């Protein structure tokens, strides 16, 4: 997917003004937050599990080369193939080769953020294949030709009416002519249409929530069952996964599963947790004849060594965005790329470039709620601040902001000057606002006074008044 992150300001504005989005986000806010809270509170061991989950990820990252090689060896033992891709382009090429070699036409896909990261659908279509997203949310946005707006609920921004319109327009070809708006009817309609696709697909592509080094298994966690039909029915199963997805053992995976489901959807366990290890075995009556895992780096191995390495603990649960006030206000599309919300504000600049995505780390109040809920205790606010530092150091900060900061800092480092300038300014502002107690308009402060009054200062600063009090006391 091509980044539109540079467009954040105008996309954010569009989101703010979209009444459907406002309603959808209001729904998401209460739905996700309350369910997660209840699920977490119901598990007394949650704090310890969270700490252990974090330690498992940290341990794995510190020995990432070892665990990747172990994973690879196990997959080979099962008769599967492991491919390595440094860049999205390499990953695309690998998948295309596998599909061509299989003589594929129709390709079903389970939800995969890495698939989005490497823009797999575009590549498959361009090469003449017919990729079909089968997760209902992904299917909806594929029909709408839109990117996901949430990492676990990709069509969260769509209303039932919009979905009804889409289905009405696109399902006539299957003989479904009635426009239906009830969610049950919509789900049923998608089920009917996709059933046929599942059964006629040549290749199934899924992502992975985990790669288990001990057993050489790729693991998907889903609720719909589409991922399982995708990885079982076609002749070839391809898994696309980031290299950070590996965990040592089944036990380690089990620990992380407990925190993942609760944080993602407020469930104790998702409906389907599926481990795939290699192709079908001799004598099996079903399952794919070929099994491929594409391991994607795309900047991850470099993050491992720098101040952003903790981001690699991310398990893509979505809790950070579910608790982010800015995400709720602007919606996922404002972020302009695959990853959204706080984790997107860190990952997007790192993956597509800070100059392209400089707004994302800036459009954050640093309120810290994301970090508070993140099951992996990723210090998202600190990373966002570090990106601002990088932006400042690389001189990507807009000149006006830079100049303002400089001037302010010049004074703030010189108390006498600071005192002089500020007490003068406050006296003026105090006079201007004396009648109403607040200012409705102020030159150069339109960002504030456009929508808010500015409470007027008292006139005399605290420091001035304090100095007087000290003199009086003596």
């Amino acid at each position, binding site marked *: 997917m091509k980044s539109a992150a540079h467009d954040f300001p105008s996309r*954010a504005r569009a989101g703010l003004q979209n009444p459907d989005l406002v309603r959808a986000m209001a729904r998401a806010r209460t739905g996700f937050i309350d369910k997660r809270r209840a699920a977490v509170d119901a598990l007394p061991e949650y704090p310890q599990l969270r700490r252990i989950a974090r330690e498992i990820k940290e341990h794995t990252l510190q020995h990432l080369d070892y665990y990747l090689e172990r994973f690879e060896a196990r997959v080979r033992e099962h008769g599967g193939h492991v491919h390595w891709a440094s860049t999205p382009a390499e990953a695309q090429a690998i998948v295309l080769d596998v599909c061509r070699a299989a003589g594929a036409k129709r390709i079903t896909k389970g939800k995969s953020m890495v698939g989005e990261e490497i823009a797999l659908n575009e590549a498959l279509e361009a090469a003449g294949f017919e990729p079909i997203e089968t997760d209902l949310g992904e299917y909806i946005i594929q029909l709408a030709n839109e990117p996901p707006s949430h990492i676990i609920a990709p069509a969260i921004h769509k209303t039932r009416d919009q979905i009804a319109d889409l289905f009405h327009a696109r399902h006539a070809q299957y003989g479904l002519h009635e426009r239906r708006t009830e969610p049950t009817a919509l789900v049923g309609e998608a089920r009917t249409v996709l059933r046929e696709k599942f059964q006629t697909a040549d290749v199934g592509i899924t992502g992975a929530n985990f790669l288990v080094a001990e057993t050489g298994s790729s693991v998907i966690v889903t609720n719909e069952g589409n991922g399982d039909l995708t990885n079982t029915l076609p002749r070839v199963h391809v898994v696309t996964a980031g290299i950070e997805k590996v965990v040592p053992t089944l036990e380690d995976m089990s620990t992380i599963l407990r925190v993942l489901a609760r944080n993602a959807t407020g469930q104790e366990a998702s409906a389907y947790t599926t481990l795939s290890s290699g192709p079908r075995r001799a004598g099996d009556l079903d399952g794919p004849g070929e099994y491929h895992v594409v391991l994607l780096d795309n900047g991850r191995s470099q993050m491992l060594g720098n101040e952003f390495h903790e981001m690699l603990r991310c398990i893509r649960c979505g809790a950070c965005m579910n608790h982010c006030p800015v995400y709720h206000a602007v919606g996922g599309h404002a972020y302009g790329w695959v990853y959204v919300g706080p984790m997107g504000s860190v990952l997007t600049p790192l993956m597509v470039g800070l100059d392209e995505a400089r707004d994302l780390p800036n459009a954050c109040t640093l309120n810290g709620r994301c970090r508070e809920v993140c099951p992996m205790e990723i210090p998202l606010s600190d990373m966002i601040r570090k990106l601002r530092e990088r932006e400042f150091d690389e001189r990507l900060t807009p000149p006006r902001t830079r100049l303002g900061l400089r001037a302010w800092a010049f004074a703030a480092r010189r108390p006498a000057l600071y005192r002089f300038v500020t007490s003068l300014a406050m006296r003026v502002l105090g006079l201007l606002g004396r009648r109403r107690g607040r200012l409705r308009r102020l030159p150069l402060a339109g960002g504030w006074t456009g929508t808010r009054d*500015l*409470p007027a200062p008292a006139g005399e600063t605290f420091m001035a*008044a304090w100095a007087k009090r000290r003199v009086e006391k003596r």
Partner: protein
Amino acid sequence: MPNRVRQSPDDATARPRVGLLVTCLVDLFRPAVGFAAVRLLEDAGCVVDVPAVQTCCGQPAYNGGDSGNARAIAKRTIEAFEPFDYVVAPSGSCAGMLREHYPRLFPTGAGWHGRAQALAERTHELVSFLADVLGVREVAARFEADATYHDSCSGLREMGVRGQPRRLLASVGGLTVAEMRDSDACCGFGGTFCVKYPEISTRLVDEKCAKILATGAGVLLGGDLGCLMNIAGRLARESHPVRVFHVAEVLAGTAGRGIGERGR
């Protein structure tokens, strides 16, 4: 003021010496909060001084990515406050800057890191300092109002301020505090965020205002002037007659003119 809890005997040498970090917003916009803080601290038995070389804790530079200037400002602040037993700020955000972030500005092992760390350990937000360190359980103030309380993000998440202001407010005569929904959700201030992304900031503060109004409270209290000015400014622009005060003013019994109200 009668009945204040005193921790230390009147012997001045045994009383904790507190350096008040006024914070730039209180200094410039609402000195009354600073004086309320002084009063609360003195009533609780502290010797309070306000180092004259303080300007701002450096957050605008730090959060703007300018760590060079943030470091320079931090050094000044550290020097200014080192002589005190405690540093106290009527702001969770500025206290959080000293406690959480100053040490990170300097490489571990460096002399300044140690000094920042030592200061960080003595730095507190005002209300939690009164409650947790000085053991103040009640105040003698009166304030007739139905209020609601906004948890400012840094105070809540960096300084652990949540129950303390509510407990102390419960001792204020005539005051009731009703909880708003999502009192811990950001008000959209975010320092320079509010002027860099005014539309988003406005949406956030609107949501906050709606939750405040839903409680029916006539007064909003909070512990950070930045958030309070933001909320008060929006409430005023939308003509909602909710009065806004810093919690210190109410606890000190000095709440008179609300934030953004005309002089009486």
